[in-house]
């Protein structure tokens, strides 16, 4: 098997910059060590290995952040804001005033990835990503922690996401615009994308307005083995085996991957027809083995008459957005920026423009 692996590794290394490759391979390696064959997870070692950063109320590169800790759940929420224009206000956090009385300031509620198992809002990779979102896309970011598997299975992550959304919606200091309301977009990568979808479903059901969903190579799956899974298994950092492990860890015991949490438009999926589900931007990495499921998700939204933009990045691998050293990153940021600032031109168009990059 060694020979086959060498070919795979070399090809993968050609596609991504070397430091990206090192970063993602390191995660892959560490995660392999953490997952136990019996389905348990070495949480202590995981927390030790995870590189975390504190928030900074003093702006760095135009962004400052602060944490909110829910003492009943011990879940962290980290809020990222653009630095105040007036330097005398550095270091202070004003929780009494809206973000703006005139302009609309989109608030991105971001659910970090990690296959429902890894990472936190204060993980360095996510903290850095969120900070970049603020400066590049001109949004406020609220990064949300949720209870992780295998210690906490479905539907804990969705419940926590829902609570976070309600919390965000009720903050005075996240309001903006002339009508002084919280303009929320839900976003997430990998499992975070899956959470964003499910929170949006609930929000729709309960009448909470979400302006849009941003799903960055969201984590979906199904019992069937798709073409992309077979074709790309083990080639670009991810294996079918590890995907299976994480689903087994998240889904209720005894469930299979056609559970609607995993396969929302599968045989047990629910219809979104006629429901005011928010418009979606789905970003798919062309070298992600899960892409067939993500494309099926896009299809599913479309078939339900929902508004969805697909950004298909043909040569991108998972985690391409952790480092700004590639085209895909910049392309993503461009699209994101357009997406969150398009509320003024809210189009009811059902067309789905598909963007491809070489």
């Amino acid at each position, binding site marked *: 098997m060694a020979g086959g692996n060498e070919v795979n590794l070399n090809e993968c290394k050609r596609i991504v910059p070397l430091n990206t490759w090192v970063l993602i391979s390191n995660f892959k390696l560490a995660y392999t060590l953490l997952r136990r064959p019996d389905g348990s997870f070495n949480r202590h070692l995981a927390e030790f290995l995870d590189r975390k950063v504190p928030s900074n109320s003093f702006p760095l590169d135009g962004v400052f952040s602060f944490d909110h800790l829910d003492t009943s759940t011990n879940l962290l929420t980290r809020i990222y804001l653009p630095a105040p224009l007036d330097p005398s206000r550095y270091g202070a956090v004003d929780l009494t005033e809206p973000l703006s009385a005139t302009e609309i300031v989109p608030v991105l509620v971001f659910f970090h990835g990690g296959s429902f198992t890894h990472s936190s809002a204060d993980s*360095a990779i996510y903290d850095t990503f969120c900070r970049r979102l603020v400066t590049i896309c001109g949004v406020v970011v609220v990064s949300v922690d949720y209870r992780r598997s295998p210690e906490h299975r479905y539907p804990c992550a969705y419940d926590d996401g829902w609570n976070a959304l309600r919390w965000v919606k009720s903050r005075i200091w996240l309001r903006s615009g002339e009508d002084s309301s919280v303009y929320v977009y839900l976003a997430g990568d990998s499992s975070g994308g899956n959470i964003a979808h499910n929170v949006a479903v609930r929000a729709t059901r309960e009448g909470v307005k979400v302006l849009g969903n941003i799903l960055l190579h969201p984590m979906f799956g199904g019992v069937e083995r798709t073409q992309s899974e077979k074709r790309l298994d083990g080639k670009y950092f991810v294996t079918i085996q590890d995907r299976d492990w994480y689903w087994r860890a998240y889904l209720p015991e005894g469930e299979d991957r056609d559970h609607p949490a995993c396969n929302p438009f599968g045989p047990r999926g629910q219809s979104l027809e006629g429901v005011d589900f928010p418009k979606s931007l789905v970003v798919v990495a062309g070298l992600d083995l899960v892409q067939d499921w993500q494309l099926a998700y896009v299809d599913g939204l479309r078939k339900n008459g929902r508004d969805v933009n697909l950004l298909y990045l043909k040569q991108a691998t998972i985690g391409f957005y952790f480092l700004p050293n590639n085209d895909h990153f910049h392309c993503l940021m461009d699209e994101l920026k357009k997406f969150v600032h398009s509320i003024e031109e809210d189009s009811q168009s059902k067309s789905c423009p598909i963007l491809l990059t070489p």
Partner: protein
Amino acid sequence: MKREHGHRETSSVKAGSSSMTANKEEAGGFDELLVVLGYKVRSSDMADVAHKLEQLEMVLDDGNSHLSDDTVHYNPSDLSGWVDSLLFDLNPTCDQVIPDQDSEYELSAIPGSAAYPRGKRTRTGSNSSTTRSMVVLDSQETGVRLVHALLACAEAVQQNNLKLADVLVKHLGLLASSQAGAMRKVATYFAEGLARRIYRIYPRDDVGLSSFSDTLQVHFYECCPYLKFAHFTANQAILEAFATAEKVHVIDLGLNQGLQWPALIQALALRPGGPPDFRLTGIGSSLTGQSIQEVGWKLGQLANAVGVNFEFKSIVLNSLSDLKQEMLEIRTGSESIAVNSVFELHRLLAHPGSIDNILLTIKSIKPDIITVVEQEANHNGAVFLDRFTESLHYYSSLFDSLEGPPSQDRVMSELYLGRQILNLVACEGEDRVERHETLAQWRNRFTMGGFKSVSIGSYAYKQASMLLALYAGADGYKVEENEGCLLLGWQTRPLIATSAWRFNRVE
């Protein structure tokens, strides 16, 4: 983790920018993009780290994807080091080229006993276990990495994988030199021992440098309490055995500079009822023949000064096993005899039969007391790797106890001990004379030989503890009593043991 301040990053987005380039902005040589994500990797090391990750991938693919229970994890931000450690842990026999690394991470010496856990697993291949304990160190202790590297090299030697051992030993030199304090010195000696073993450049025969070795021992005596403890406790046993004797004869199996005897002579002088006649037979090797006479002469001067009748005789031998009863000119019936051995007996284990010869000779002269001081360690196991591991731990403790302000005595003591290490690691067969065995092993040998243990007694224990407090400031030294024997150690580790015996005469 501290956020890196002053991190510059362009927040403007260039649409349609040119093809992918790895961002090579460097902050102190480290890849800046990774630094922000919590990982310190030098740009110049990137390819190498990538290579190691690939190797690890291959190792893990072989189904060995779980860590052993006592895997130690180093600072994960130091990706290179972390990956290194995993490679050693998961596949110590893998043939890897380790590039030079100069480390900027803060290093500090690790006390020997903490350097690695006792009873470390013997490797027979991959092992998996169902228990869940794990040792984790969130520090930048390359000292522990160094220990792992030493053990990996020793293991390569054990498995006769000299190609790998060669690579590792070169790496060791660099790792060791980036350490400080006791760890550096110990590692350097052990690394040298390994190198000598690998390249077959064996240390010169000790006999040729005997007088130098005596000198070194004097420095060792001056600089730390081990020898003083040995002499003191042995003398206590001898004094008790000689309590009422009118003529006493001490046979010192290794006279060296005779440092043990002034105190005994003085104690005898102060004996209630007056001193006995004191006769000393000092044994040494051929090249110290001349200086033995001088030592005897000086002791004579001292004895005269305190009013003790003194007689001296020297015996020069190539090996203690050549000692015959006749040489000792025992005056049967009229003298009490003590046989004293400080760090001498273990050398005889290098030659089959030698230890039995000397024990026979000792039995034949029917001594009233036999005092034995030896290193408290098993450095004579059959398996090289086990000896290496044991002795690494032992000398780490020993060197650790020597740490302090620099002095001539200390430097020479370290050399004294270093020579033992080199002999232990690099030599084999009859050349390997530093064959230390534990008190338990010696007890066994003596008991089987028909000797009976004589308790050294609580008075000696108390005195030893007090003296230790005076000399060494009770810093880390500890005196222990074990079934009538006394041990001196550093922190939790006993390092030398004194025992006393007599021979069961068959009436």
